[in-house]
């Protein structure tokens, strides 16, 4: 009666889905996912990429919630509320696989050898599927599951040995990447426990070659934490509430903000942080010796731009998107193919019209003189001189974005995330009422 799905279901219909951004590992293209749509820009040819998809169904019918490239960059995956996982070949930008899962997908990742795509669903399960195209039909295999929690992020460590999953119940779990993924990942290696609210995202800091990478995680408790993921030891807590830039942001009442996004620069030294309802980006520096995170810089975008997703590219440029699309809930009752097609078309339409802001933050090379100490310094690119120029903006932003509109959309997206992540709080009265209508309780009352 009080199943997990049901308790989340209510109110989901009026949700906004935040825009997502991802950059090809070699920096050759940028992808924005908004609503059910993918917008891809090729930076080498300086033109929009048109995808081809002959799988069934050929388009996402509801909001995309997760996108990812594999390390080599030859694959890309998109997945979301329509329970579809799509695997793309990035050379031709054609969809090579579409599978349907029983539940909405929240996160995707690839194994380090690129042989497997992994995805997590709203029931706390992680599945995998081989990336190789085969004759026979693909069945996803379950790798692991968090008992009755939503998995919020899924990553594979750089040496490929562990799967890191974070959930709504404050937990980060580290599982051993199995020799045969089709047989599941039954060995839990560690837990990173310490967050005092839902965990939203995870990433890795430190140099990849050193083999000494550490985990960073963001949470509804507005901290970014640093972990030794092999032992589960918490090494440092960075509380974003302590930053002036965050406190001074006047755009909203100053309730604690959840950390909603993390991206780490390719050398593993800079952590870019997005906060809920915050019109900027925080840059933290990872101190490899001290095993700490230090505030480096806060970059405020503009009053109306509330970023929803961010990604460093190979050249340490930080791509940021702000935007959201109405997420149209199809529901499970949808039966006829016509209905499905109509709903899908509507979702695609909404996605096309949705506006987003795309911004670029670049590293400014070497300050001179006494400032040499503060060499690492980032600046917001002028829109006019941005990489990709006008063509990129018109592809990714979807027409000229009206900033007010985007702000409203982003705000709505944040709220939707809140709703999703925070457990429903009932007042005492409500709880009593709910109890009263429970069948087993009725039984007891009658008897007394």
């Amino acid at each position, binding site marked *: 009666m009080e199943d*997990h799905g049901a308790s989340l279901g209510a109110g989901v219909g009026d949700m906004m889905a935040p825009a997502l951004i991802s950059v090809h590992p070699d920096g050759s293209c940028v992808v924005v996912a908004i609503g059910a749509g993918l917008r891809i820009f090729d930076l080498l040819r300086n033109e929009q990429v048109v995808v081809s998809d002959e799988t069934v169904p050929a388009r996402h019918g509801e909001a995309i919630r997760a996108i990812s490239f594999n390390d080599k960059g030859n694959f890309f995956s998109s997945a979301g509320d329509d329970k579809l996982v799509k695997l793309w070949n990035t050379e031709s930008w054609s969809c090579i696989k579409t599978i349907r899962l029983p539940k909405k997908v929240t996160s995707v990742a690839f194994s380090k050898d690129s042989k497997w795509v992994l995805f997590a669903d709203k029931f706390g399960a992680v599945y995998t599927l081989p990336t190789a195209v085969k004759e026979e039909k693909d069945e996803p295999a379950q790798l692991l599951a968090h*008992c009755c*929690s939503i998995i919020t992020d899924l990553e594979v460590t750089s040496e490929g040995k562990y799967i890191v999953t974070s959930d709504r119940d404050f937990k980060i779990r580290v599982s051993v990447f199995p020799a045969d993924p089709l047989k599941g990942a039954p*060995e839990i290696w560690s837990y990173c426990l310490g967050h005092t609210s839902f965990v939203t995202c995870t990433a890795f800091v430190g140099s990849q070659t050193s083999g000494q990478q550490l985990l960073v995680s963001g949470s509804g408790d507005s901290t970014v934490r640093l972990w030794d993921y092999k*032992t589960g030891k918490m090494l440092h807590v960075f509380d974003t509430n302590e930053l002036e830039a965050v406190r001074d942001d006047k755009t909203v009442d100053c309730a604690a903000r959840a950390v909603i996004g993390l991206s780490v620069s390719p050398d593993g030294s800079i952590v870019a942080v997005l906060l809920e309802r915050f019109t900027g980006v925080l840059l933290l520096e990872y101190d490899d010796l001290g095993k700490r995170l230090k505030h480096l810089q806060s970059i405020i975008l503009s009053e109306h731009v509330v970023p929803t997703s961010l990604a460093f590219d190979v050249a340490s440029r930080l791509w940021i998107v702000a935007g959201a699309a109405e997420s149209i809930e199809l529901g499970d009752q949808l039966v006829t193919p016509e209905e499905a097609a109509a709903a899908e078309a509507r979702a695609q339409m909404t996605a096309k019209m949705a506006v987003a802001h795309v911004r670029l933050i670049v590293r400014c090379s070497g300050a001179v003189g006494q400032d040499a100490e503060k060499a690492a310094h980032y600046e917001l690119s002028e829109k006019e001189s941005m990489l990709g120029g006008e063509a990129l903006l018109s592809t990714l932003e979807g027409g000229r974005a009206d900033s007010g509109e985007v702000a409203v959309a982003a705000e709505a997206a944040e709220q939707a995330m809140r709703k999703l992540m925070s457990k429903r709080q009932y007042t005492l009265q409500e709880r009593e009422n709910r109890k009263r209508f429970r069948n087993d309780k009725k*039984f007891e009352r009658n008897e007394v």
Partner: protein
Amino acid sequence: MQHRRKKYSTVFHEETEKDVLFARARKISAQLSQKAMADQGNGAREKGKKRTEHSTIAQGGDQKGLPRKRFYRARAHSNPLSDSHFPVPNNPCECDWKEHFPAFFKDATGEVENGSCATENMKAENRSSENGAIVPSSQAEKLEPKVRFADVGCGFGGLLVKLSVLFPDKLMVGMELRDKVSEYVKERIHALRVKHPGQYENISCLRTNAMKYLPNYFEKGQLEKMFFLFPDPHFKEKNHRRRIISQTLLAEYAYIMAIGGIIYTITDVEELGEWMKSNLDAHPLFEPVSEDELDQDRCVELLSSATEEGQKVARNSGETFRAIYRRIESGA
């Protein structure tokens, strides 16, 4: 529902001391007294004889003695998958075991520093090289004793009471989802401690959802034994994911168990017995314990005799199905 309810409404089993002991007046009984009065009628009909034995207590005034189960009558089931509303420690370092086992923490330094979790984790990580279970040095165990046995879904605590005297040096905890039942067990243990000074100091009970929060209480490799006695069967297929043994949950149990640790399961529901066995068989981190070893194991006979549920099954000469497995190292 109905049959489950009845199950728990039987007054607490005979053998638990007719003696009336000195115990602190119980807040809980007071709160529940109204309900108890209502129950009294039914109780009397069912077990007339016992009523007289207990009536002095029920009549209030200075209430002394072991807690009676009927005061703690609770809903037959809680859905283990729904969100809970009780405090849960963030991680094992935040568990205050001192409160549960004051006698064991008397000589302990008291200050459990924050990094200790990680040290245990490190130990756990190295354990493969040490060839098997982490055997904490008796010294370390004395300084900072750790819970080594867990009775998951302990119900009214019969197993803990029996295990307590068998393994007086091991700390053990019962984990129970239903609030009133866990309160009952706490009271029961308290009363036993008062009656037998120096004994029953090594057992305690926690209200928690073991399906969700075990890693919040125990570190990697901490537990030497885990017990699952007569767990709720959740017959319907769509409720199978509420079962306390599953591939998903076994991964968690394997994580908190020491290599070489033993997991004990027993049920009177054949289908559930099959389910638990096949899940354990399918999990690469567990192997069945041989019959020979089982014969030597002092815990085995308690499985069917120590708990309230077990006794009930025995009274009805019901058949039981057990599956007992060892946590083994990963083959990979």
